[in-house]
């Protein structure tokens, strides 16, 4: 599979995503520059973590107007696979490619910590290498990851299976203490209605080597790799 990792000014985990996909998994991956409109024939686009444009306004609010985002929106409309991690998730929400929004953590502070994440829907292109109920050990690192959406929309999203990942405790149970940022319904990752666009706050690219804290993140990338059209 050919992957494209978008580099916005202020992207930070772009190199880590590239490393995970190209070096650890041995797949074909390249950087896509935010000022370009060409996607170079890639089959999956990854919007990485970071602070695009400094995120001094609202996270992702400026990045969505980058030249490349026009192409990303068209790519998604054509059914192409798009995954947004952390700041990438925030950008996807701002671009209305995914429902909902991400606001400041309940604690009002940045949180960097490994969390337990439960797979809620394993029949998506992003989770097909997992099973429903699987627990993934993935780090989060963000200041604005509190997921919000209108209640009725959330209900519909749950019914359609768009809630893909949830924060839980080590035993797989939801609890207030296990919800690091106060997200509604402990949501850590959601997909669009067509299940070809996926946003998540946890960082699978930071869980791909045993020495650096585990390999659970590989399951996300392996799912995508196995979903090539």
């Amino acid at each position, binding site marked *: 599979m050919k992957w494209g990792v978008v580099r916005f*000014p*202020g992207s*930070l*985990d772009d*190199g*880590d995503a590239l*490393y*995970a996909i190209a070096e650890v998994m041995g797949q074909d991956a390249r950087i896509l520059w935010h000022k370009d409109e060409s996607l170079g024939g890639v089959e999956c686009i990854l919007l990485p*973590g*970071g*602070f695009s*444009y*400094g*995120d*001094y306004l609202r996270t992702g609010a400026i990045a969505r107007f980058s030249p490349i985002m026009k192409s990303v929106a068209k790519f998604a409309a054509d059914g192409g696979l798009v995954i947004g991690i952390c700041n990438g998730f925030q950008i996807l929400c701002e671009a209305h490619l995914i429902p909902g929004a991400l606001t400041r953590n309940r604690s009002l*502070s*940045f*949180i*960097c*910590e490994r969390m337990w994440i439960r797979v809620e829907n394993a029949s998506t292109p992003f989770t097909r290498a997992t099973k429903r109920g699987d627990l993934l050990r993935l*780090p989060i*690192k963000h*200041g604005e990851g509190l997921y919000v959406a209108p209640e009725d929309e959330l209900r519909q999203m749950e019914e359609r299976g768009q809630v893909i990942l949830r924060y839980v405790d080590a035993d797989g149970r939801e609890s207030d203490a296990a919800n690091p940022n106060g997200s509604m319904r402990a949501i850590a990752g959601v997909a669009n209605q067509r299940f070809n666009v996926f946003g998540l706050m946890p*960082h699978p*690219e*930071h869980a791909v*080597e045993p*020495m*650096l*804290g585990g390999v659970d993140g590989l399951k996300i990338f392996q799912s995508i790799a196995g979903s090539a059209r």
Partner: protein
Amino acid sequence: MSERPVSLPGEPKVDLEQARAHGLAPDEYRKIEQIIGRTPTYTELGVFSVMWSEHCSYKSSRRHLRKLPSKSELVVQGPGENAGAIDVGDGWAAVFKIESHNHPSFVEPYQGAATGVGGILRDIFTMGARPVASMNSLKFGSFEHPRTRYLLGGVVGGIGGYGNCVGVPTVAGEVMFDAAYNANILVNAFCLGLVRKGEMMSAKARGPGNPVLYVGSATGRDGIHGASMASAEFDKQSEAKRPAVQVGDPFTEKLLIEACLEAGKTGAIVAIQDMGAAGLTSSSSEMASHGGLGIEIDLDKVPLREARLTPYEILLSESQERMLIVAERGREAELKTVFDKWDLHAVVIGHVTEDKRWRMRWRGQIVADIPIGALADDAPLYDRPAAEPEAQPQTKISITEKPGTAKALRALLDSPNIASKKWVYRQYDSIVQSNTVLGPGSDAAVLRIKNSRRAIALKVDSNPRACALDPYLGAVGTVCEAARNVACAGARPVGITNCLNYGNPERPEVMWQFVRGVEGLRDASIAFGAPVVSGNVSFYNETEGHPIPPTPTIAVLGVMIDVSKHVTQFFKNAGDAIAIVRTATPSLAASEYAAIFGIDGGRLGAIDLAREAALIEGLVEGAEQGLIRSAHDVAEGGLAVALAEACFNPRAILGAEVELGRAGNAAAVDFFGEGASTVVLSIAERDAARVESLFAGRGLEFAVIGRVIADPRLKISGTLDEGIAELQRIYEDAIPRRLRGSD
């Protein structure tokens, strides 16, 4: 020479009084008049005042810093550039430095700390190295002091707010709370970068006629006189110095990192330097001076945030995220292309000259024209009197009340100085760049080097309470502790950087503390063969006549040949032997136990540096041979606390059963004593004899004191039997509980 510099309409008259207001001593002012042969212009006076400030000139410290060893087979760059560099193998050099941002952080904690991080990052990537790790050492007043929470929240927020946004992981640090810092907090920021050997960049200008480029953010009024603020004591008016604190823009810094590293690859950069303290003035004069050349700048070409800045303000501004580059003539366009790509200013503002003058033009006139040496190398140099104070700290410890052992252990784990700092480091991105093998919460951080088996280990340490009792032994002990922590992880210490925080050097007793501290650093550095390649001095850390305790902050770089052999502090398997190895006998002097239970004074034990070096060699060899399951340095709180911490394994909580002290007669000093360079090891039973010979063979005291048990309890000498879960709860909750304000 040429035209004479002019004073501008409306500028204040320059005289002795004006010089005094700029922080220049009368002798210094007379020396300026002598050097330039006339009365300086107001702009020139401002320039001299910052360049001759303690912060920029090191006028009180320079002659002592020369004593520090700075050479070894591994040194790629010693002091003299923006940072030092050490060969870490496989073609890589590690470029690193630590610097203070104490004064601004006390006045405005968020921006002060943030720009401290930004400044030290620039010192690293100007060398052509990609910053890969940050650390910090923080000292706050007592937790009960009304300003401490505000300062703690602001500083931690600022470090995270800046560091997280530039994509450099914060991998380790230390935080201490003590009333001695109530009116003078310390914020020391460390950064390390990696560069291929042979691709390092320099800050020495070369080639008269070469163009000088200004890159990065535009210049504003922020930070004017920041360097002077850092060169004076605080008083009641210090709050009013807020405008002298700079404001950080980490987004621009991130662009600057990428653009500068990319520009470095073109080969068109001759020299590059950060516009740090004293901004355009120091960067331009230092680059030219280091190259034995002059520089001429047209201030009208400097990108400005507002049009009405005066030459004085342009030259003294400490606006952040700016760099000065000397380019190869004719290759300016190549560099501009790179900076355009990253949407950053890159403007030719002047050129290198042969005449060794620092000449500034503005609106067709010359506003400053100074011999280059006067601003840098010929700045005043003082041999300030140093004298041991009359009143010695009392040397006898008296314990009036002897708290129960379990009660004391709980109190120690609940002390913010010992307790988990997770509340702090959880606010820092510690994993970006995918190299962090061991992050915050360990004895030392361990970072792998990609495409290599090698790894580096990092630790920053300080021990002001010991330094207050004996500034020499305290400094020696601090280096030993940092080096030992790195060795506990399995890495060999190879290099040191230091941030020397002291009071007003014009006081003989402070100068004495400083001189003894430097001597301690020197002796320990020699003993470990780990040279001091970079550093920073911060004087005038005092408010209304009360100096901080002497606080040399030491960061040690270690190198590991094989990252898979790294060792952590946590017990791994029930049944493993628990052993201690140490170089001396512990004491309660300067211990956390003494601080909590109100014991003053005491005398530090002597330190045998040959034994310290032997301990480090033994630890590294044991790790390399895979004989050590866990190694944890005994620091604040002594052996009992170290044993408890070793049980807090995040993967599997284990217990420990040990015998301490003289059979059945253990005293507080056996449980909670410090200062004996002790390491707690756990070892597979079958390896115990080999590990013993590793240390006993080096003449060190080695003893198996117990074993790791599956029952999650800490059992010591039949007098203490506590559940690990409860101890860990106290340890984890000590800082959050205080911040919730529920006690």
